[in-house]
Each structure stands twice: as C-alpha cells, then as structure tokens.
C-alpha cells in the first residue's frame, strides 16, 4: 500500500494532496477511489466560492462555518499544513486581526485550488 501511495504521489507530482486515506478506504477498488475523488471535485469548488465570497464580505461567522464543514474532507485528503490554519480560524474567528485572517484564508484558498488541480489530474488518469 505504502509503495503504491508513493508511486501515485510521485507519478502525479502531488504537492498538495496525499491519497493514503483514499486508497485505504478504497481497498483496491478504483471505482470507490474515484467516488471520493469525484466528490472532492464536486463539493470543494462550491465551498471554495462560498469561502471567497465570505472573505470579501468579511463575514467571519460564515468563514468559520465553511471551514468547519470542509475540514474533515481536507484532512482525509491529507492536504498538507491546512488543518492548523483552519483550526485557528475556527477558534479565533471572532478575535483574529483582519490582516492575519486575510492571510490565512488566502493561504487556504490557494492550497485548495492546488489540491483541486491534483484531484482533477488523478481522475483523468484513472477514469476511463
């Protein structure tokens, strides 16, 4: 399993996602693996748009809710270094200075966009 993950991550030049959990729950079924990848491709852009909108409107409650909702899926896809900024935003959303909040949300958006590209590439490779 580990070898397969390393191979997959290297083949796809993955910097943002790690498919270890996806492969573990898929247990060798490409169909099941694709189900999770398609679901990511379907759910994340909508939430990403909501997040961008909430950021532009400085709607902190909305930012917290969107991140809270996305967080388990992002953890599952092993998105590097995203969980700590999300947790900070979840717990400090009321008090965090504007500038810091903006930096963290921008960083999260950028990582999610990178992750989406990698997920799309993986789908293209395995979806026949």
């Amino acid at each position, binding site marked *: 399993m580990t070898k397969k993950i390393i191979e997959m991550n290297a083949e796809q030049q993955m910097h943002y996602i790690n498919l270890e959990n996806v492969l573990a729950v898929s247990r060798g079924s490409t169909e099941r693996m694709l189900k999770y990848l398609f*679901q990511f491709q379907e759910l994340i852009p909508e939430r990403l748009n909501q997040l961008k909108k909430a950021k532009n409107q400085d709607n902190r409650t909305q930012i917290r809710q969107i991140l809270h909702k996305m967080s*388990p899926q992002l953890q599952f896809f092993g998105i590097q270094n995203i969980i700590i900024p999300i947790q900070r935003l979840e717990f400090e959303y009321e008090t965090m200075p504007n500038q810091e909040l903006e930096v963290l949300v921008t960083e999260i958006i950028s990582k999610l966009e990178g992750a989406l590209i990698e997920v799309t590439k993986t789908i293209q490779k395995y979806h026949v």
Partner: protein
Amino acid sequence: MSNIQLNSISAVIIDDDPFIQELLKDKLNQYFPEIQILGLGNNGREGILKIQQLKPNLVFLDVEMTDMTGFEMLSRLDAITFKTIFITSYKHYAIKAIRFNALDYLLKPFDLEELKNAILRFKKNQKSDNVPIALQNLKSKQASDQILILKTQQGELHIQLKDIISIEGERNYSYINMVNSKKELVSKTLSNLEELLEDKGFFRCHKSYLINKLHITENPNGSTLFLSNGMKIPISRRKKDTFNNWFNNELI
C-alpha cells in the same frame, strides 16, 4: 443485549455532509457487516423523519447541521429508543457538552480503531443512555441544576452540580466532596474536571482543589476559604487576583 440483536444492528447516519455520509457508510460496510444501514439523513429535519420511519437501534448523529444541532434534533423526538454516537470535528465546542454528559462520540474523518471501540461499546451496551439527561442539562437555566455524569469503578455517578462542595485532585484520580458528607472517587484528573466545570461556577483555587462558588461561606483574608462543610481551603498566591475577580463578578 442478546446475540440475535447483535447480529442485526440497524443504523441511520445523519449528517449534512455527503462526504461524511459516504465515508462512514463505507467504513461500516467494510468492517462491520453486522450493521445494516437503513438510511441517511441530510439534516436534522430529515433525521427526525428517518428515525421515525426506520426505527434504528443505533444513530450516528452530526453535532452541528445546517438546520439544527444534533441535540436540538434529539429534543424534538417524542421518544428516544436508540443509542446515539455523536460525530463531530476535532475540538468542536460541543465536545465539552458531550464529555460532561459522558456521551459517546467519534471524531471526523473517523479513525478505524476509534470506530471499532465505539461499536464494541455499543454492542456491550457499556455506554448507558445519557441522552435524556444531556437534553435536560442543556435546558437548565442554572448551571448548578445540571447533572454531571462520571465513570466510577461501580458504574456511573450522576451528580447535580449544586451537591458538589469541592473536588480534590490525587494524581490520576479525584475525590468529590458532596453535601451529604460522602466522598466519591472518580478516575478523572482535577484538570479534566476543571475543564468541564470552569464555566459552571467552579474555580481551581489551588493545584489540588476545585471549589464550587455556591459553597463558599467565608473568604476572610483572600488567601483562605471556608466551605459549607467546614473545610478550610488555601488559595494559591498566583491565583489570588483571578480568584477575587471570579468571586466578585461571575454569575452562576
């Protein structure tokens, strides 16, 4: 619980995130073939309907949904005839309420070992059903009326907060001094209990003591306290100012 029942566990998953629904369904199908998933609910309203129609004996319930919380959903049911395993994200504020009421929960996106343990507890019926008490606690206007549920060697201890005078820490255990002069031993550290009780009229005035404001009878010199059972408790020097602020300001 009989073996016949064990062979046919019927479950419903209620969560407004399709990813979580799929993931939990796959993990349950893969590792617990004895669990039959009768249905999925996408929010609290659907959850109520699914429970009423399908009558499961186990419900996996999201703590925070778009239309209502898991607790609100449970409070809208006429009767709770099933066991609940709450599902929540890491460090969600509701975890405190879940722990206070000794309810069962799983963190998303579900560690397999934790899932196995939760199912095992369900099968062994180890977790008693504290949901009705939890709902009552959430409705209580006064924190002192709430009931704390703690594990003991004999089983579970249900204590109304107003009946606790103080708590003494003893490494991994704590002694609860009660109004009826009883002293209950529980396998929680004083820090664990402080976390559960700090916003409910309790204060850690010393490394070994947590005290209930309701039972402070005297605070003569700012460095010692007298409690309603006659106990004399020291206040740490570094806690003096915080104690004074808390004692003079906080409403219970």
